């Protein structure tokens, strides 16, 4: 490699200076939060910081029966301090996620310990709450005390670590995430297929139209982008709800009886319809850009060679449009599995997707570790899909235009 002379180096620095704002922006708004969240999914120091001595002593505990008195003494001292430093609530919340019902045990004990000046602590704590005599309580504390942990990821795929260290399925009633992932994948698949079925003819029409008309049609495809996503989604509510426009028309036409109005929103149907509408342009644009590159003489050539229109399409046009199909499908699918706002508004209870659960854990249950782990699984899924696509089709063949 040749060493750049001074003015070349200056030019390179200037170029770097021009892209620096973007790089910094991406770093601050995308890479840093992503890294923080992914760290959070495996790193949780709250309990480890609050109860260091207790956890160190629990290491020696064999896991059967109650721990020795020294553990109780350390726990009492550290819980009291946590109460004073007002971190006990966070500790209680984390322990509670492993073993339901322990939140009040931990906070209650921490409060009441202040009135008891001395040991023996085992008796004192058990007197405050029977739960302290249960080994499960101490297992829960030991589990949450791990500074680096896989339990959020296990949780995210409906697994748990048993007290003996082995990995097993969650109990039936707590298995929700795998089903939700599966549903998200299926719904995204259906939406992708619908977008392809609806978008393919439109893209073809635009690609074959004379330039001025093609521009107009492209603008029409893009018009939804000028409207707020919220407006578009709520418009679907107006159209689809039980007393909505579509039901009114169906009733007026006599196709549906007045008390048999169809439930088309606040369920999976609503999610699919609204998301297909929102994501359609992402299918049309890559398809259009690939189709524009297919010479129109190809269909004429196929016809002159004796092919029926169907044969010409299947053998000549479709294979050439595949890069666009791949790009559009990948784009729509990836956007769909991470989509949040539309299912939240029109999905009801059975139209919720995994991203709504992530939002729930971020905003309501405040279990950021689990939210991050769910996000991490989703990210891994997307990367896997991308790798698969690259392997099968080749990313360089993707026609994003």
């Amino acid at each position: 490699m040749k060493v750049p002379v001074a003015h070349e180096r200056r030019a390179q620095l200037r170029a770097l200076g021009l892209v620096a704002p973007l790089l910094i922006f991406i770093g601050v708004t995308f890479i840093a939060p992503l890294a923080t969240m992914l760290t959070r999914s495996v790193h949780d120091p709250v309990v480890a910081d609050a109860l260091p001595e207790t956890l160190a002593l629990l290491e020696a505990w064999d896991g059967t029966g109650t721990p020795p008195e020294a553990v109780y003494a350390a726990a009492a001292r550290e819980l009291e301090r946590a109460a004073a430093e007002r971190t006990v609530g966070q500790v209680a919340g984390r322990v509670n996620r492993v073993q339901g019902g322990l939140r009040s045990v931990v906070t209650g004990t921490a409060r009441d310990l202040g009135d008891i000046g001395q040991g023996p602590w085992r008796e004192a704590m058990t007197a405050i709450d029977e739960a302290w005599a249960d080994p499960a309580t101490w297992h829960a504390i030991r589990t949450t005390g791990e500074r680096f942990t896989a339990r959020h990821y296990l949780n995210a795929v409906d697994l748990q670590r048993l007290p003996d260290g082995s990995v097993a399925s969650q109990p039936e009633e707590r298995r929700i995430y795998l089903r939700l992932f599966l549903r998200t994948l299926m719904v995204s698949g259906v939406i992708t297929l619908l977008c392809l079925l609806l978008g393919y003819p439109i893209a073809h029409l635009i690609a074959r139209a004379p330039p001025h008309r093609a521009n107009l049609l492209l603008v029409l495809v893009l018009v939804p982008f000028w409207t707020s996503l919220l407006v578009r989604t709520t418009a679907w509510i107006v159209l689809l709800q039980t007393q909505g426009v579509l039901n009114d028309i169906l009733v007026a036409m006599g196709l549906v009886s007045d008390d048999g109005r169809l439930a088309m929103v606040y369920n999976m149907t609503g999610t699919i319809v609204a998301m297909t509408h929102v994501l359609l342009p992402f299918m049309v644009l890559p398809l259009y850009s690939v189709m524009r590159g297919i010479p129109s003489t190809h269909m004429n050539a196929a016809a002159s060679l004796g092919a029926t229109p169907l044969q010409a399409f299947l053998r000549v046009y479709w294979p050439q449009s595949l890069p666009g199909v791949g790009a559009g499908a990948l784009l729509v699918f990836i956007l769909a599995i991470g989509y949040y706002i539309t299912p939240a508004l029109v999905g009801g209870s059975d139209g919720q997707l995994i991203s709504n659960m992530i939002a729930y854990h971020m905003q309501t249950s405040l279990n950021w570790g689990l939210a991050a782990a769910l996000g991490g699984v989703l990210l891994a899924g997307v990367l896997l899909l991308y790798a698969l696509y690259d392997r099968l089709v080749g990313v360089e063949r993707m026609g994003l235009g």
Partner: protein
Amino acid sequence: MTARRDTAHVEFRGVAKSYDGRTLVVEDLDLSIRTGEFVTLLGPSGSGKTTILMMLAGFQAPTAGEILLDGRPIHDLPPRKRGIGMVFQNYALFPHMTVGANLAFPLEVRGMDAAERGRRVERALRLVRLEGFADRRPGQLSGGQQQRVAIARALVFEPTLVLMDEPLGALDRSLREEMQYEIRRIHRTLGVTVVYVTHDQQEAMVMSDRIAVLRGGIVEQIAAPEGLYEEPERAFVARFIGENNQLHGRVTAMLDGDVCDVETGGEKIRALKVAPCEAGDDVTLSIRPERVAINPEPGSYRNEVSARVEDLTFLGDHLRIRLAACGRDDFIATIPNVLGHGGLLEGDDVRIGWTVSDCRALDHEHP
């Protein structure tokens, strides 16, 4: 298919085409093409030649008139049922298929079995001298090779009629000339009827049995290449095919034997009457540069005028002389490089002459 010479393979009867309902792209076309004939539609862009081809192929419908194939009207047949081979501008090879698959495509859609397909594909590749290219993709071939594949694909299902729409337009000059002879060879080997569209007169001359010169949707003249060159009937044809001097003049007298006297640039020229004209009509005189003799024996030509040499250009096989004569300064004469340039120098006063039969009085065009 037995060659049926002298029968019309393709016939246009009063065919007209308009895209917008007002202007005619093709006007009242009557054209009959014999089986096995190589006919070229030659004309500048916008002359309607491609439209005629597209109507024959079935991609455009005539606005009026009818087209007959082997004596049967074909306007109800979609392109795929016409059984016409077609070579497109820019080839229209399918880039996602190998050369072999491209050639097999028309056979496949006809339901031919794989063994027979393989044989025919191989034969077609041999015809265009591309043996061993079956597994390549069109994108891996040069322009000339792609052209050969396109021709092979148009021939592989053994059509009796092949249409070619400016197939050599994308090739460079030397390759174009090579391909012209190649196409001529293939035509002679197979005996298929070819309708060829081009704007290149040399291309048309090399390959065609007959050339139809088109302008503004009208056939100006249809004749064999020699006929078009030697006996142009229209000023446009004379100008479009080969070089010629066109002198604008007025008929002063009509003589017996289709001969007339024309006055142009102060000279009185005797010319062959081609366009219908009377004394007093405006005409265009067409004189080929190579038929102009420089300093001939006095009295050996009916037409003799004085001229001055303005410019001499040596062009290897011939010498091109620009003269001031008949009131203009762009009168061109060429003499073959056989005897040298006969001691001519710029500024020399000379006499030039030509025969009556080499001077054709054609229609007058208002510029």
